[in-house]
């Protein structure tokens, strides 16, 4: 372990005291922040030379961001337990036999959720809930099922204190799926995030329509292009956290992200960016992720000691890592400006072409970089269009067109995005607030989704511009909770804090309403 300066120790002590005295944080939030502060004192990773200037510089120059993963990762960032297997075999560690009815099944889930670690300390994946629960409700009437789903989902919302927590539905219509959507629409909770894995050839039209109706009420489910994810990750993929495609029984060791706008700032022109600056940063972020993964697998002891691994609910060799990026739009605009051009991302073919060229460079780099612990994905990372964090100022999420600059017509917007979604098997998404009138015509939304899948779009979210639960980036918050937090009241969920930051820095309430 390397030494650190006393200045850094002193700064950490002040930070710790600040956390302890902060009245806007709940007890759980304080514990998480304290643990982060403690681990920030360690220096054990074998990091590449040159990282410091890209990662630890001022925020407005930062080119690589490790999203608060800390200096000594003790568990993978995202963990995707195989809950079906848990239902089949129970758990010795949790002292649970396999559930025999619906009530035990729900109770089992609530128990295991408390023991699934992640970067947020809350489970980022709650299971393909409809498939998991459907076998248990055959002999129960709707009212009984809904009553217990209501209790279960309310429990999740009040104890899984983070919207980066995902339940999946589909692709096959089930009675459990319909009832989960019905209850979710009624409860209007922010947690969990829900995605419907949708394939027009497998999913009933009625099921996806029910999904749209629910989404316009409460901003979920989102819709994932099932065919596309399946072709890349296999049948046993899930959507976890914000919208991340990962392997069931695996997950992601880490997620670091390139801040493309700031990388473009450091280049003289397009040529310099493509040939020198970008490849340099790509390599350093790659080697930094290698170092994090090596520590987790070889030193942390997680895979040897955690019950999920010991009981076969996760497998080390189903993990991969997410190679993230933000600000493609920023990079394109900055580079075009350096060439004396006024084209803007989202509004010109030349800008789109440059965006695609940048993505090709990143994709090719990834295909040539090998990490021996990413066997699940052929030894390569999965690219990820990251949604941004509250601290981001003037940074466009992933490959999105910045809020306020969306093309006037939705069709033009979709056509721009269709160039980029295919690069991101571990997730990318775009969000469209809808005018209330389409409550009366959910088929309108379904037509857009069907068309989008034909155009290689991967993942879409819709919400009504008038609902309380709104989608910030990859997670949901309640407008009413943001308002409370702004008045200095401690609120239950972590993501409300992020949402408040995003409201101010990310202008999320100003998205173009469709």
């Amino acid at each position: 372990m390397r030494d650190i300066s006393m200045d850094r120790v002193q700064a950490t002590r002040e930070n710790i005291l600040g956390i302890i005295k902060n009245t806007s944080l709940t007890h759980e939030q304080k514990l998480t922040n304290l643990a982060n502060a403690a681990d920030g004192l360690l220096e054990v990773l074998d990091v590449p030379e040159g990282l410091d200037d890209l990662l630890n510089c001022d925020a407005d120059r930062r080119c690589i961001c490790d999203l608060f993963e800390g200096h000594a990762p003790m568990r993978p960032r995202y963990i995707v337990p195989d809950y079906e297997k848990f239902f089949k075999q129970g758990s010795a560690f949790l002292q649970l036999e396999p559930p025999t009815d619906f009530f035990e099944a729900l109770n089992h889930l609530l128990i295991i959720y408390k023991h699934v670690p992640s970067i947020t300390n809350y489970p980022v994946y709650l299971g393909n809930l409809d498939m998991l629960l459907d076998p248990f409700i055959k002999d129960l009437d709707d009212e009984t099922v809904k009553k217990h789903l209501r209790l279960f989902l309310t429990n999740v919302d009040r104890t899984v204190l983070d919207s980066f927590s995902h339940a999946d539905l589909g692709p096959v219509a089930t009675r459990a799926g319909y009832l989960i959507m019905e209850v979710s629409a009624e409860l209007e909770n922010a947690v969990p995030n829900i995605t419907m894995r949708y394939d027009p050839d497998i999913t009933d039209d009625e099921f996806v329509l029910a999904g749209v109706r629910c989404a316009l009420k409460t901003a979920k489910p989102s819709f994932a292009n099932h065919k596309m994810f399946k072709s890349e990750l296999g049948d046993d993929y899930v959507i976890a956290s914000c919208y991340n495609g990962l392997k069931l029984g695996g997950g992601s060791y880490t997620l670091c992200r390139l801040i493309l706008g700031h990388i473009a700032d450091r280049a003289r022109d397009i040529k310099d960016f493509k040939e020198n600056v970008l490849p340099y940063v790509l390599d350093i972020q790659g080697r930094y992720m290698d170092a994090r993964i090596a520590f987790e697998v070889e030193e942390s002891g997680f895979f040897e000691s955690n019950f999920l691994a010991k009981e076969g609910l996760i497998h080390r060799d189903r993990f991969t890592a997410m190679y993230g990026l933000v600000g493609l739009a920023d990079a394109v605009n900055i580079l075009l400006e350096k060439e004396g051009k006024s084209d803007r991302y989202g509004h010109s073919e030349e800008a789109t072409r440059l965006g695609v060229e940048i993505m090709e460079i990143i994709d090719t780099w990834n295909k040539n970089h090998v990490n021996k612990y990413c066997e699940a994905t052929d030894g390569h990372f999965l690219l990820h269009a990251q949604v941004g964090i509250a601290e981001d100022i003037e940074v466009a999420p992933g490959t999105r067109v910045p809020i306020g600059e969306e093309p006037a017509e939705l069709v033009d917007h979709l056509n721009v995005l269709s160039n980029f979604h295919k690069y991101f098997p571990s997730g990318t998404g775009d969000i469209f607030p809808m005018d209330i009138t389409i409550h009366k015509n959910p088929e309108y939304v379904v037509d857009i989704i069907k068309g989008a899948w034909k155009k290689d779009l991967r993942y879409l979210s819709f919400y009504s511009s008038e609902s309380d639960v709104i989608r910030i980036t990859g997670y949901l918050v309640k407008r009413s909770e943001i308002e409370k937090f702004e008045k200095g009241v401690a609120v239950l969920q972590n993501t409300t804090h992020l949402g408040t930051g995003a409201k101010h820095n990310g202008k999320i309430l100003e998205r173009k309403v469709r």
Partner: protein
Amino acid sequence: MTAVTAPVNKIIPFSSVDGPGNRTAIFLQGCNIDCRYCHNPETRVTVVMSGHNPDISEAVITVGDGPCQVDITHMTPQAVMEQVKKQVPFIRGITVSGGECMLHQDFLHDLFVLAKGEGLTTLIDSNGTLPFSKCPELLSVTDGVMLDVKAFFQADYETVTGSKNTYEVVLENAVFLAAQGKLEEIRCVICPSLYDGKKSVRALGEYMKSYYEPGAFHFKLISYRPMGVRPEYAHMLTPGTDYMNELAAILSEIGYQDTVVV
């Protein structure tokens, strides 16, 4: 190909309110009646082009002035289709509206033939004043008609539309289209200041009953709203939600399903 053109007032690429699913809506200029509550009075004015050169597929003309000014583009079906294709595969079809689009039947026919070639469905939004029974060729490429029935009783109809000799045609169209399986929707704008909505909707419902079976067509009841109407009519009353729901209940009592209230 044909050199027929129509005056196009606007094209809405994605519309959620002009028929089932997502559709591109095309609004043509010019109307043959004069509804007091017309929400787009600027589409009513008929534009006469003198010395029109048939080789030009698009020509922009400006009518009106001040806030009512509109740009009208004379377009061929081919030119309109080029605009529509940008929305494929996100749309399931097109809807042509107005003004009154049935004033441009040849154009509609040719446009719909092209749309069918792209696998799109085709809807006409009409005030019903021109007889559909006289245009079988157009109907053969039309999936459905969304028909305005401005009011069921003649006196009310004439109050609303200012039109003296079109009342019977509208009701004939409703029956004819329903029998042909081409009636998509009957739409009624409800404006209590102009006529008794309850009486009218009930009578219309009874009148159409024998042509109805579930899934065949549905009613859309539209509350009159003062937005966009000419200032001299802006004082007319907007019906309340309760009133609109009562009308929907009347239709459901008669046996109609899927009534839409907006």
